[in-house]
């Protein structure tokens, strides 16, 4: 049971989602956030917070984003916890509506 951060987050990383999480399940990478599937309790409050609409319940992940389910799990294992909002990445607004950003993911 989990929610999943998808491609839209890459190079934006607004972090609005992390403040509302009751169980501190977000993990921060250089230009992407991941949800630790072992911690997420599916409360769904983060979904509405994301300016890039990047977060989905596992069952609702769009078909072209399915790989992000495994990616969240793998990345969350090694990234540090983030529990307070920080400033978005510098060009977040320019990248918000860009598609096919997986190539830019930094680990």
């Amino acid at each position, binding site marked *: *049971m989990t929610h999943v951060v998808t491609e839209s987050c890459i190079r934006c990383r607004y972090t609005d989602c992390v403040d509302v999480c*009751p*169980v501190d399940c977000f993990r921060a990478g250089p230009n992407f956030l991941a949800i630790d599937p*072992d*911690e997420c*309790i*599916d*409360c*769904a409050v983060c979904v509405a917070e994301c300016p890039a609409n990047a977060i989905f*319940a596992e*069952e609702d992940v769009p078909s072209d984003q399915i790989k992000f389910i495994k990616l969240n799990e793998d990345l969350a*294992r090694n990234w540090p916890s983030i529990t307070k909002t920080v400033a978005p990445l510098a060009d977040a607004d320019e990248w918000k509506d860009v598609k096919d950003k997986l190539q830019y993911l930094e680990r």
Partner: protein
Amino acid sequence: MKNKQTTLATGVIEADAVIIGAGPVGLFQVFELGLLEIKAHVIDSLPVVGGQCVELYPDKPIYDIPAVPVCTGQELTDNLLKQIEPFDPTFHLGQEVTLVERREDGRFDLETSTGTRFITKTIFIAAGVGSFQPRTLKVDGIEAFEGKQLFYRVKDPSQFEGKNLVICGGGDSALDWALNLVGKAESVILLHRREDFRAAPASVAKMKELCDNYEMQLLIGQVTGIESKDDVLTEIKVTGADGVTRRLPLDTLLVFFGLSPKLGPIAEWGLEIERKQLKVMDTEKFETNVPGIFAVGDINTYPGKKKLILSGFHEAALAAFGAAPYIFPEKKIHMQYTTTSPKLHKILGVETPTFD
């Protein structure tokens, strides 16, 4: 309570109501059933009451409990325990419900992981996000050693005497067991992925003192691989913050990564499940597709569901009224107010106030 709870000669408890989950909604379910003179048994997988309020965010303040401007999850739990005191519920903690089966007489057989057995007329599932299970170590092949050389909980500390132990984790469980087993085990290494610890500062200080005295060791890093020989785990590979992987021989690995919720066996009881939530048939009774089994709080779903504690309280009230006909088929159930009803005052064990 007027209705009796009997324990059969076979050790099976005959009950009117069994509540699964001792979170805030499960506790308030005791209260609502109590006002209808229904005594409840409460089962929880954790050794303490409070559910996710206590397990996941005990110190985070809650602001949306009606008439309580602010309280922590722990305070909410303590207040609910006080509130349900008159109804004398029986708690069965540290056990998970493993079996629920409809009997021919219409009641349910219910069993827990520790062997407690019930025959009950009704069941209230207030299981929130599921039962809390130890978070596991994710290393390929490690699961084969669980229960033999890999442990996520300690039942019998004496089995670790004389062993070379590696204890993983940075919380209270990891530190407490490390401190406890130093001197009894042959050697103790505490392995944590970073320098800061969630455990109580006093335990961390004690651990560091033991390390300074060469009575135990602290390593910073993560388990990234294992080696085994003849089905025996011989060493783990530990990758440190410097990126270097080192080999560490050991007898036994204890892992304390905290708990995470899992829906567990609830999925196997023939209940209708929608997106991992129990679907209730209507919002009049919050009954599931199995008559006699009710679902309240975060675990249920229905159109417009909001996962709020206060919604769970409301659901518990209506579920109690919905369940009453199964327990007292002959009795007409009337709603009464705790302010004015002498009958409820008697149930609550309070004086009926007199006004001039």
